[in-house]
């Protein structure tokens, strides 16, 4: 193998000091250093420089620096975490805000009507006592009956659906007869669903 050029040797010296020289190249460098006194002196000088710089005293931070840093921090990280989540998920955030607005408007609409209301095509045969709507025994109510914010007791006949919103149905008496179905709606969400389905029902049947 031809002998190494001195300029290559210098590059190898640095690589060697960096711990970045392959074993074979290291052997080659070693051979060169035994033959070239100038390069050997250069290597020694570089090695000494390395050792000196590594041995430099560590400069410690002032004792109170840690405390000063902690005091300089903004008081809370929570809002930052929240806003960054919003930044990362814009679509989800927009959908969530939309849902909140929708839901709150529905809830407020639902809360507006706390009073008892009874609706249906045939209310003549219905008796209202305080908060209670009664279909008396022996009476026949034709058509659907919808009661909001009140209880319902059916003793007679109901020829249609019974819908109770935010109220309860007193267990049916043996004399009762309801031709349609009984629906009880207790919560705002159900009420919302009822509104939607009745809206679509209206569309479908064109009533």
């Amino acid at each position, binding site marked *: 193998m031809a002998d190494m050029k001195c300029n290559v040797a210098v590059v190898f010296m640095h690589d060697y000091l960096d711990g970045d020289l392959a074993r074979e190249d290291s052997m080659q460098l070693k051979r060169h250093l035994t033959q070239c006194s100038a390069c050997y002196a250069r290597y020694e000088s570089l090695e000494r420089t390395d050792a000196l*710089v590594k041995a430099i005293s560590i*400069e410690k931070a002032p004792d109170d620096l840690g405390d000063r840093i902690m005091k300089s*921090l903004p008081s809370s990280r929570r809002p930052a975490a929240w806003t960054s989540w919003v930044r990362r998920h814009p679509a989800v955030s927009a959908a969530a805000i939309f849902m909140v607005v929708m839901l709150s408007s529905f809830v407020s609409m639902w809360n507006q009507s706390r009073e008892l209301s009874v609706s249906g095509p045939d209310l003549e045969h219905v008796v209202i006592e305080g908060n209670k709507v009664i279909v008396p025994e022996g009476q026949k109510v034709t058509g659907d009956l919808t009661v909001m914010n009140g209880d319902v007791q059916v003793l007679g006949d109901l020829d249609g659906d019974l819908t109770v919103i935010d109220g309860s149905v007193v267990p049916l008496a043996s004399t009762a007869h309801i031709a349609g179905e009984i629906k009880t709606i207790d919560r705002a969400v159900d009420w919302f669903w009822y509104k939607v389905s009745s809206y679509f029902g209206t569309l479908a049947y064109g009533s």
Partner: protein
Amino acid sequence: MKPLETRLARLARRGDQRAFAEIVDLYKDKLYHLAYRMTGNRQEAEDVVQEAFLRVYKNLDRYDENQKFSTWIYRITTNLCIDRLRKRKAIYSLDAESSDHEGLDGYAMLPSDDRTPESELILSETQRLIHEAIAALPAKYKSVMILRYLQDLSLQEISDVMDMPVTTVKTRVHRGREFLRKKLEHKL
């Protein structure tokens, strides 16, 4: 399991102040040492460290856990130091790019502060010469050399911190080492 710093960073991200205090404790001396050697000025070093921790704190959400925490915090600090040196350069207009390789640009001529805390009263002549030689390093070698020797980072880690190829880091370490050798050779 993730390394300690990564776990602390995760806790701090959730608002745990004690976890962040531990991070400060782990790194304040290292960062101060880095900043002091970079700027050559104690007051500036303190400012840099304070600013660096503030940035870390504000950007915890952006810390990528696949990266070493030390790499991230060193990058923030090194960038702050380089920014300061750059501003200084602009203020004093000591720009001398042509002599970059000889290290005769403006930084070398800036006086370092002469406050001597007790720890430095017994600073040996040797130590003083080494400090001077490091202070005289051109900025682009200085950061690499400080990370390599004073913070004991590997070439790969320095490449991650400085965001430059390993080959560039190597070249700078070699040139920086030659620079220091020439500075120190005849004095020691």
